[in-house]
């Protein structure tokens, strides 16, 4: 697991800033949520950690290694970063069964067959999917696809696991259970997790630290209790209140 550091990170399209002046440290083993309305830059920031977007300004570190610094044209490709990610659309490959979906990152690492089988089985029991190995992904429910995506992100023993609004397509009851499950897995495996959501309840319930964003900038960083007790700006106060 790694710590992630943002130093004055920004991304500019032509003349507009998608995100600007992001200074942020995500500690090893921490559960951090990016919270904000749609279009606030939270997903862009997450995708910059993955390397799916390139920042145009500032530096990003994993521990002490620079993974992106546009000034010296240094950029580590996403496939080299060893970061796991759970997409909003799940992105479970429809042409592979459950086992092959989860085993994919391990096959690319050229692990031995027995090793892959053992790792995948273990991860499937953690996300409670045991027995569904040969299921086609088209035969899975939304919640099950979610678990496949989670297992695939975890099985590679990533430095960080990124989750992009993973629960937004599930019904309310299932969402509640998944929140608890994800948090439990994070604590049991001592993972660094970054979680993007526009649901303040979700962010405050799950996180060690919440990053409230607005119009491409960070409004406030803090523990859930601190932010709720003393919001730093009217925007933050409004945003918290609107969810109650």
């Amino acid at each position: 697991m790694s710590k992630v550091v943002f130093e004055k990170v920004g991304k500019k399209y032509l003349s507009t800033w998608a995100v600007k002046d992001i200074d942020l440290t995500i500690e090893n083993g921490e559960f951090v949520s990016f919270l904000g309305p749609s279009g606030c830059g939270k997903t862009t920031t997450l995708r910059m950690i993955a390397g799916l977007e390139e920042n145009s300004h500032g530096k990003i570190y994993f521990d002490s290694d620079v993974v992106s610094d546009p000034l010296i044209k240094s950029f580590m490709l996403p496939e080299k970063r060893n970061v796991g990610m759970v997409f909003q659309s799940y992105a479970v490959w429809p042409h592979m069964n459950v086992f092959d979906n989860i085993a994919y990152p391990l096959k690319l690492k050229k692990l031995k067959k027995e090793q892959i089988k053992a790792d995948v089985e273990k991860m499937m029991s953690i996300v409670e999917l045991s027995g569904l190995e040969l299921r086609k992904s088209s035969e899975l429910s939304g919640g099950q696809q979610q678990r496949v995506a989670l297992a695939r992100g975890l099985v590679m023993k990533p430095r960080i696991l990124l989750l992009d609004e993973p629960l937004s397509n599930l019904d309310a009851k299932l969402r509640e259970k998944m929140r608890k499950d994800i948090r439990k897995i994070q604590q049991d495996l001592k993972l660094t997790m970054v979680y993007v959501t526009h649901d303040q309840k979700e962010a405050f319930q799950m996180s060690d630290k919440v990053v409230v964003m607005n119009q491409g900038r960070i409004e406030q960083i803090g523990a859930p209790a601190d932010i709720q007790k003393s919001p730093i700006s009217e925007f933050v106060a409004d945003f918290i209140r609107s969810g109650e």
Partner: protein
Amino acid sequence: MIKKIVYGLCLVFLAALFLSPQVYLYLIPKLSDFSSVLLNENTLKAITNTLFVSLTVAACCLLIGLPLAWLLTRTNLPYKSFFRSGFCLPYAIPPFVGAIGWIILANPTSGVLNQWLGLHLNIYSYAGLIWVETSFLFTFVLLTALTVLDQMDSSLEEAARLSGANGLRVFIDIALPLLKPAILSGFLLSFLATAASFGVPALIGGPARIYLMTTQIYTYQRMGTANGLQMSIAVSVILGIATLVLLYGTQLFFSSSKNYTVGGKTSRPSLVPLNGWKKPVTVFLSILLFIIFILPLCGVLLSALSAVQGSWTLSGLTLDNFDRVVFETEETARALRQSLFLGLGSALICTAFAFIFNYFIYRTKWFGRTFASVIASMPFSTPGTVLALAFILSFSRGFFGIGPSLYNTLFLILLAYIVKYMSLSIKTVGDGYQQIHPSLEEAARISGADWWTIMKTIYLPLLKTALIASMFLVFMPVISELTMTILLTGPGLETIGTLIFSLQEYSDMSGGGASVLSIIVVMFILILNFSLKFLSKGRYGL
């Protein structure tokens, strides 16, 4: 990094094969060449003939195609899917087969219809030429209009019916105006297809001494003289430029016209009842389908089975012609082998290129990709005659002087097919790419896959159906291509198309050889079409 290099190679490939031969051709003639074309009686006649025949054919295509499309989608016509399939099928069949069929049925000296029914039809005439062209090219209008009508919000028509309009009024007041963009593009496509056609005007126009620009270019090119070549180049350039201007000019002009049809509505439309018209319309369509599609094929079949051509009876039919043409003629085996090689080769190469190239179109925002995709699709609408001449000029002394001459080689024919039909692959595979959510690729990258691994393990399996369809769709027209091949072919380079053409024109007029091969080609294409339709569960194929 590899990605950028591959993209660069794609661009070089497009520039070398798709762009430079045509540009080179267009830059050859001097202004004085054009004036000598316009002052020459033959070429001027060919140009006016082309305009007259193409305009008439396009108008006839609208007349048949539009009402047909509406009947097939919007009314309670019985046997709709049967009629739909039947009327679309001529799209897949090479028109020169139809020409051969109609020559057998309606030539003035010994046409079957003239003999049996005492008619006095003469297929070797303007009317004959226009009829045979129309009987194939109305499918351009039909297919365009079907696509639009399938997607049209049917509540627009339902509102008209509730306002008191009957079936015909609904068609005239609502469907027709909404179909305007489809009408324009259908008209343009069938116009351009007529102007670019070669097989039908060569077989029917030749004996009637009616020359179009394509057949005139062929005649000049075959003369082999410097003057002939000069004239064929000048006529080609006029035809090529006119096509470009019409195609892209009208797109600019009409791009502002609104499209009311895209509502994404898949609601089941209520159908306009034909009431008392139901029976007459069904009978009429059956007769039309019989005359357009079945009758000429019956003519070809009769000729293929007759020992003596010209005095037609149903007694004494024999398979001798098949035996002679298929097993005893050495050209046939060679033509079949070479057509198969060309078909498989171009299908594979077009599909492979489209697989890689479309990735850059739909998955990157790299510079020049839009322009590159226009360049890649352009040759499909360039008349084959023009394209073939451009290839002969660019490659006959090596590639612009580099390397060995490719003139009179199978390889040059292969290149021409790839360039001409690439558009079909790019369209089919591109539609496939658009159906795949980008996160499926991103999830693989995050898992540690580099670009090539992603292409192999994610896109290749996900695009499987589209890639197979792309191969079929290129293979089918290539297997019987005539227009380009007739100019590019040489001694020993027969294909099925050129062999049928030469059997019909010169060498086997009394033996029914062309008919035998035509029947084989049509059967082959129909089988391919229906297996594609079956394999793709109705998504592709007619």
